[in-house]
């Protein structure tokens, strides 16, 4: 089963093809890693799939339904949610209020993970320790990351794209978020992880996709993909190994 399929998609900024004729099928119920060196098009890929930057050409479908060119909020309604790498939430809103926005507006009808019923449940599920009435301006980076995951989960997604959800976290926090991602996955959500740290990918993901200069470079089980000569070259240049 394919959860998300990308067919011959291209995103161009002027002459630069940030995504260049990419065709991909992401397996349902899997945790897929999306990797690639800086500037390879990972973030553009997330922006394209979530509708923020529609592709110039190509087709995107979610669970068999075409979502190409749909507005971002409508794509969310269809069941695709994303997190932002640097979540900029309004400082004056509380944890509860931020999570309440998708709970109110993104009614895709699926159940929330972990039997959660409201914003408070989701905050706890994601390991947010501060009270739900805490304003976002007072949260630490690691709590903002958890809040961002909780916000995305409140969209009730079938496919969740995590854009470097663990970047800059302490080892302990990273372990907790890895545990959380596994739990979300176990609740039946298809997950795409954009990550730099290879150790995390090798532990977490059953499938990996490598982008380089906007093109699909390799695809397959993470161990094999990381052994791929082309992938090594893209990351390190010729003559080095990972």
């Amino acid at each position, binding site marked *: 089963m394919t959860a998300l399929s990308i067919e011959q998609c291209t995103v161009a900024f002027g002459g630069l093809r940030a995504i260049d004729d990419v065709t991909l099928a992401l397996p349902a119920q899997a945790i897929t890693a999306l990797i690639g060196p800086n500037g390879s098009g990972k973030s553009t890929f997330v922006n394209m799939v*979530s*509708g*923020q930057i529609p592709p110039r050409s190509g087709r995107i479908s979610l669970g068999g339904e075409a979502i190409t060119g749909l*507005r*971002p*909020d409508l794509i*969310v*309604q269809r069941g695709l*949610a*994303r997190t*932002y790498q640097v*979540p*900029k*939430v*309004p400082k*004056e*809103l509380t944890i509860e*209020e*931020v999570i*309440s*926005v*998708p709970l*109110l*507006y*993104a*009614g895709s009808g699926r159940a929330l993970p972990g039997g959660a019923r409201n914003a408070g449940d989701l905050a706890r599920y994601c390991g947010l320790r501060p009270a739900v009435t805490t304003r976002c301006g007072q949260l630490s980076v690691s709590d903002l990351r958890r809040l961002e995951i909780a*916000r*995305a989960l*409140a*969209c009730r997604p079938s496919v969740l794209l995590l854009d470097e959800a663990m970047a800059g976290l302490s080892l302990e926090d990273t372990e907790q978020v890895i545990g959380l991602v596994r739990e979300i996955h176990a609740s039946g959500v298809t997950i795409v992880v954009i990550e730099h740290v290879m150790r995390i990918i090798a532990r977490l993901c059953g499938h990996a996709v490598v982008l380089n200069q906007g093109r699909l470079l390799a695809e397959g089980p993470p161990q094999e993909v990381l052994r791929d000569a082309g992938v090594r070259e893209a990351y390190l240049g010729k003559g080095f190994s990972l």
Partner: protein
Amino acid sequence: MSAGLLARIGLYAAIAAPLLRIAASDRPFLVQVAIGTAISAILALAWDILSRTGQVSLGHAAFFGIGGYGSALLTPVLGPVLGWTVGILLCGVVALLLGAVTLRLRRLYFTIATLSFSLSIHVVILVTPGLTGGSTGIMPPVIAGGSPPLQLLFITGCLVVAAVVSDVFLGGRFRPAFFMIRNNPDLAAASGVPVTRLKILAFVVSGMVAGLAGACYCGLYGYVIPDDVFTTNWNVLPLAVTILGGMDTTLGPVVGAVVLRLLEEVARHLVGGVGYQVVYGAVIILFIVGMPEGLVGFVRRLIRSRRRQAAEPGQASAKARLAL
């Protein structure tokens, strides 16, 4: 009845009570000042509702004027209730059409578009004397038979209506979504919020509340010329009032309207002539620089820090001393 609802009813009572007290007093000057203040407060509430979505309007005089002219011209045809309703709905329709075009614009471009819109509406009135009386103006039916205390009573009612509308948009359904749209529209869209639709909704509601303020204003004396309503004064006033009183609240625009009028009267009394406007302007600037969150925000922060002080005495009092 929930505590929140009780608190809100208390707030409306606190807003209405002094105005009703003035209406009952036998002081014509005070009644006129109260009428003017209440109308400013309604217009400022309208402006604030829109600003919560990040749209800064410099063209609310357009809705103020359309509401005033619309209700004035339609009342003789449709009667007062329907005339006012259609006049105010007209503001909503204009906001819808204007919003469909301009709300896709970013920040400053939107502001400039609203300003030019208000200027062009002024011109439209001037060049259509057959329909709108042109530069000679119109004679709107007066509210409450022209009795100022009764007019104040009616306008107080309108102010409470505006406050209720403002509170609806500060409720759980809209406040977080509006702030998210203002702060980060991409994040709002990624949370399922139909961003443009909500921005247009805020614009339509804001335009209609501003139209209500204009209808009240035009019904005061029985005579209105375009320069009374379609002026920069009404474009800038709601912004000054709201920033002074405190944005993103219902109380802020009301407090701002009272304080601004107080400042104006004090400056007029002390300085006199036209020079008072300079002093008045300077004091507004000082207020805005000194209290960027407005009076309501300032007082709220004061209360919060007092509470914290009570909770952890040593640390907070040191901080408070530093702040002072």
